[in-house]
Structures are given as structure tokens and as C-alpha cells.
């Protein structure tokens, strides 16, 4: 290349000529491997600590918060990093949720003969959240995420080519289409005999309960699984932010014309961000449906999408830890204000307005929590623990 362009053999002139750094075993361990153990540790602590500290009800709220962390962090990749405005995240969550519910419910009925929760294996006095049912759930969640991602590709490819508000309109429509289609789905089958006897015409109507929603899903989404996936989502999103992909996302948000001139393929990166968000939105939905939360077509509606958008905006557009923090606050706050009856909605709104006036860029802006407080952080070390939930990075 240097010869072709007549560039001097000055070593500093080209990226390719920078001496290759060979990361040592210690560095690889610290940067690549240890954070995953952090993720695992968060999950284990959540599984065995949450209920003991917060009680049964508190643990349920925390589990919901964990699911919303996944939703908010993944939406943040589109709305925060890349600066696009998606209003249909609930639609992807609902798709993922219904797919996972379908797999677990009908899979359990057909193979295990019942959709009751299986007995947990006990090893050395500790009951472990890992049964065949859990594997079925995980398969369903991954499948749900993948189907959500494919839908994300189909929705994103045409609308992300255009500039402006098209994505907002299209995604808003997408959420509503999902909701209406789910309302038209077939009745849920509750007995094994009925399921065995069902012909293709029954399956083609997608028997997931119509407007009533799907029910009877075994609650396999223990704290372990929710916080394992939540922490993993945070880690992946944070690593993405620190990579060439993340810089490309952020540059698109900052200035599309300049990003293009620097060689960024706008559509390719926008679609990548969108598909990423759709996948993890689907995963969040898959967990939610297994957490004992009633799941109806209303879950795809725009109110849910808005809740997640508020989390992203409140936490700071582009901040992973900000989205985590906001998801925690906005999941716990309504519970704390429950005693105020309907006045809590007013207070909730006032708090939001006050926050937007005081910190219009969200709580953290584009920075991470450890960049705001305390010393400068070097890439890849374990971050400040954000409320014991998902601060690993």
C-alpha cells in the first residue's frame, strides 16, 4: 500500500505498520475471561441473596427490574448509541416472549406431559435452578431472540435507509401490528389430549390465547437466569461501546455526514444496532414470560415501549450503566410509591419532569457511572457495582 500511494516508509503513517501488540496471558485473562466470571458471580449472588435480603415480594420486583435492565440496555444501543429513535421495543419483547412461552408451554406439555414446574435437583443441600424445563426455556428464549432479530432486520432494513423520523413511525406501527396479530391468535390448549389431537389448522392459528394472553407458563426464570442474562447483556453492550463498532454507532449519532465521510456505512451499522437490540429485546420478553408476569398482547403496546424509552433517556443516551440505573429506579419507584394510591402517578411524573429539567442529558449522559464518579477508569476492568446488579464490564 505504501508503495502504491507513494507514501513514505515512515512507520507512523499507516495503521498496518504499527507494531503488533501481543497480549500476554494475564491481559487476556483480565480483559476477556474475568468479566464473565463477574457475570456468573452476579447471577449466583442474585439467586441465593435476593430473596434472603429483600423478601419474596422484593425479589419479584428485583427480577422484573432485571428484565427491564436487559430491555433498556439493548434499546440504548439503538436510541442511545446510534441516535435512532425506535418506539417498538415492546413489540420485539412480545415476540420473544410469546415464542419462548410457546416453546416452553407446548414443549413441556408434549414431552413432560405437564406444564408444572419440575422439581429442582438438590446438590449438597443447595437446590439448583437447572432442569430439563430450564433447558427448554433457554432454547425458547434463544429462539425468541432470533425471531425478534429477524423481524428487526425486516423492519429495520427499509426504514433505516431513510433519514429522519421514519424509524419512529415504522417501529410504532410494528408494535401495534404485533399486538393486533397476537389478539387474533388461536385459543390456548390446556390439556395434553387436546394438544396431541390438534391438527395443522389449529397450530397454524398459533394457539397462544388471543386477547386473553398466554398463561400457565412454568416459572423457570429464576433470579439466576435473569441476572445472568442481564449482566451478560450489559457486558456485551459495554464491550461493543468500547470497540470500533461502538465508535461507529456513536459517530452516526453525532454527525451522519461526517461519519459517512470517515467511511462508515450508515445503513449497515444502523441495521446492526437495530438487530442487536431486537435480539436482546426478545430475550428480555422471553425471561419476562417465565417470571410469572401475566403476558397478554398488551405487552406489545406502545405504553411498554415508552416505559423503556424513558429508562434509556433518563439514564443517559449512550450510557450502559445509566440504563441499568434508570431501569432499577423506574422499576422500584412505582413500588415504593404504591402507598400513595393514585397520587403516585402524579409524583412519578413530577420526578421525571424534575430530572429532565435538572439533567437534560439523563443521569449520566454518554458516560458510565465510574467515569462520572471517582478516578478515571481504564478499559476492561470490573466496574463499580451498580446496586449489586450488573456493574460488571
Amino acid at each position: 500500500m505504501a508503495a502504491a500511494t507513494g507514501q513514505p516508509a515512515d512507520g507512523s503513517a499507516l495503521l498496518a505498520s504499527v507494531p503488533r501488540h501481543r497480549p500476554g496471558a494475564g491481559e487476556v485473562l483480565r480483559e476477556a475471561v474475568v468479566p464473565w466470571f463477574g457475570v456468573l458471580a452476579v447471577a449466583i449472588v442474585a439467586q441465593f441473596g435476593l430473596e434472603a435480603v429483600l423478601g419474596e415480594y422484593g425479589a419479584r420486583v428485583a427480577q422484573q427490574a432485571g428484565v427491564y435492565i436487559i430491555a433498556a440496555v439493548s434499546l440504548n444501543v439503538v436510541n442511545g448509541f446510534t441516535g435512532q429513535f425506535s418506539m417498538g421495543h415492546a413489540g420485539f419483547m412480545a415476540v420473544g416472549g410469546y415464542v419462548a412461552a410457546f416453546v416452553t408451554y407446548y414443549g413441556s406439555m408434549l414431552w413432560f406431559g405437564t406444564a408444572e414446574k419440575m422439581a429442582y435437583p438438590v446438590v449438597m443441600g443447595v437446590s439448583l435452578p437447572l432442569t430439563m424445563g430450564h433447558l427448554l426455556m433457554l432454547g425458547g428464549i434463544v429462539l425468541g431472540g432470533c425471531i425478534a432479530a429477524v423481524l428487526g432486520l425486516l423492519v429495520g432494513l427499509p426504514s433505516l435507509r431513510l433519514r429522519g423520523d421514519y424509524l419512529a413511525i415504522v417501529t410504532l406501527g410494528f408494535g401495534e401490528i404485533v399486538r393486533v396479530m397476537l389478539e387474533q391468535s388461536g385459543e390456548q390448549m390446556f390439556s395434553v389430549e387436546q394438544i396431541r389431537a390438534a391438527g395443522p389448522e389449529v397450530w397454524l392459528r398459533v394457539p397462544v390465547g388471543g386477547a386473553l394472553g398466554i398463561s400457565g407458563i412454568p416459572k423457570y426464570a429464576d433470579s439466576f437466569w435473569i441476572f445472568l442474562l442481564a449482566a451478560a447483556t450489559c457486558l456485551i453492550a459495554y464491550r461493543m461501546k468500547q470497540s470500533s463498532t461502538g465508535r461507529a454507532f456513536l459517530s452516526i449519532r453525532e454527525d451522519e455526514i461526517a461519519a459517512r465521510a470517515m467511511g462508515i456505512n450508515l445503513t449497515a451499522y444502523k441495521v446492526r444496532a437495530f438487530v442487536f437490540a431486537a435480539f436482546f429485546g426478545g430475550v428480555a420478553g422471553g425471561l419476562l414470560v417465565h417470571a410469572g408476569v401475566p403476558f397478554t398482547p398488551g405487552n406489545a403496546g406502545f405504553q411498554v415501549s415508552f416505559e423503556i424509552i424513558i429508562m434509556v433517556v433518563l439514564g443517559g443516551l449512550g450510557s450502559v450503566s445509566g440504563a441499568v440505573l434508570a431501569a432499577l429506579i423506574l422499576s422500584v419507584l412505582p413500588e415504593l410509591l404504591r402507598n400513595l394510591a393514585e397520587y403516585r402517578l402524579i409524583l412519578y411524573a413530577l420526578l421525571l419532569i424534575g430530572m429532565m429539567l435538572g439533567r437534560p442529558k439523563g443521569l449520566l449522559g454518554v458516560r458510565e457511572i465510574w467515569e462520572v464518579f471517582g478516578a478515571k477508569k481504564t478499559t476492561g476492568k470490573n466496574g463499580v457495582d451498580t446496586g449489586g446488579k450488573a456493574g460488571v464490564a
Partner: protein
Amino acid sequence: MTNSIPPSPGGILLDVNGIGISFGGLKAVQNFTLKMPRGCLYGLIGPNGAGKTTIFNLLTGVYQAQRGTITLDGQRVEALAPHKIAAAGLSRTFQNIRLFGDLTVLDNVKLACHLRGRHGIWSTVLRMPGFLAQEKAITTRAMEMLDVFGLGHLAGEQARNLPYGDQRRLEICRALATEPKVLLLDEPAAGMNPSEKRSLAGTITTIRERFGLAVLLIEHDMGLVMDICHNITVLDHGEVISVGTPRQVQDDPKVVEAYLGAPDAGMQAEPDHGGTKVMQTNGHGGGGGSGDAPAGGSHGTA
């Protein structure tokens, strides 16, 4: 320094042949032709609204040329998308600075390294050794680039917080990090004071030599253009009216007319006062008058 064209072993690097674009009835650029040798520092001047920035937008693919061809180092680029043109080796700065304001100075440059090295998705998610090596190389190189521009100590600052002159320099630095063959600078001296302009002129000549680039420069400061450019094309109303060395261009009656108005048109043709002024005073101190090419000019080029 002399304004002679440096030896160009590779011949023509950027060959623009008869490109044109119209916006409705407005012929913004017509039949624009430009032959840039390797290693050349080329000036593109003309009164306000002559179509200079439009030509940059055509070259970089922001607008698609309706006619003509653009060949960069043997590769036809006129129909390519902007990011592909950047990959082919054409990089630019903007008249109104377009930095990534929320990103740090370092990240602005690291982003621009993207074209010559990026991470795969799995490598990113798993942060594999290849990722660590690549990231380290990108950071090293970006820091080197910043040091060339004396911006190294500002690496951690948000780009939006930089003083104006540093923002201009960072934009050039970022454009260079894409490893271009041709660098397009759109009024890099706009809004700068004389001492900043002097240092900018030094920077432009230095980077041309150090990185072996061809530079195409749009500039209103005639002193700067006449001093550092080897060749100049003058544009008026979207058409080329003069091509040549700084001396030839300055002596061309058509150029004088474009800037001062035709002698007999007098009252009708409104003279461009800004252009008149820089043309006559020749920018900053020491340079010759408009008829006298300031060879060996006032800018230290070291």
C-alpha cells in the same frame, strides 16, 4: 519555497473529467475538470457561491455527479457511496466543522482508523486476543496522529470543548487517520487569526510531505493559497475560468474580472468586497501585491 509542481512519478492521481450537477434549473457545477498529480498541493478558489463546496460534495459522493467521471488512482469512484469513496482513499474536512462532539478527541481519531482496521463482532463480544491487539494498535496510531498535530495532551477531552483552532486541526487529523491518498480541505483557515493561519500553512505542507498525500484546498485567504499551492483552479458560477500556477492565475484577466467585476460592467456587476480585499492585500503581511506571486512567501514551511 517555490510553487513548482513536485516530481510526480505516478502521474495523475485524481482525474476529474467534465463532472456537472444541476439543482432544478440551477447549474451548480458544469463541466468541471481537474488533473491532480501525486504529491500535489492544489488550490481551488473562486468567489462565494462559485460551487467549490459542491465540487467537494461531488468528489466525496455526498452528491452524485449527473455527468462526467472521477478517477482516483485508476479506480472510477463517481458512482460509489460516500463510505466507499472514503475507503478508496479520498478524505475531507468540512467548511463548518463536523466533529463528533460528544466523543473524546482520541475517539474521534480512533473512529477514523475504522477504515483500515476494525473488530469482528465475536471478537468484540468475547474480547479475544485479536481484539486486544487491534485495539492497542488503533490507540497507538491515533495517539501518534494526535501528536503530529500537537493535540496529544487533549486526547481525553470531549471534542466539543476544544478551542476553535484545535477543532480545525483535529478535523484534519481525523481525515488523515483514514489513510487517504487525496485530502480535501474545505476552508481550513476560516475564522483563524493570522498566527493560526501561519501555523496551519506549515501544518498543511508538513503533512503533505510526511504522509505523501495530494491535497486539494478550498480557501478564501489568497495569501495562504498563493503561498503554498503548486497549482490553482479558479471557479466562477460553477465553471472553471482559469487553471495554472499561482502567478499565471493572478495575472489572468478573467480571474480579476470574477473577483472585481468587469471594468465596463461597472455598476451592474456587484464586486465581491471580501474577495477584492484579500486579492489586493494578499492576506497577511509581507506578501507581494496581486500581480506579484509571493514566491518564497511568508509562511515558514520548515
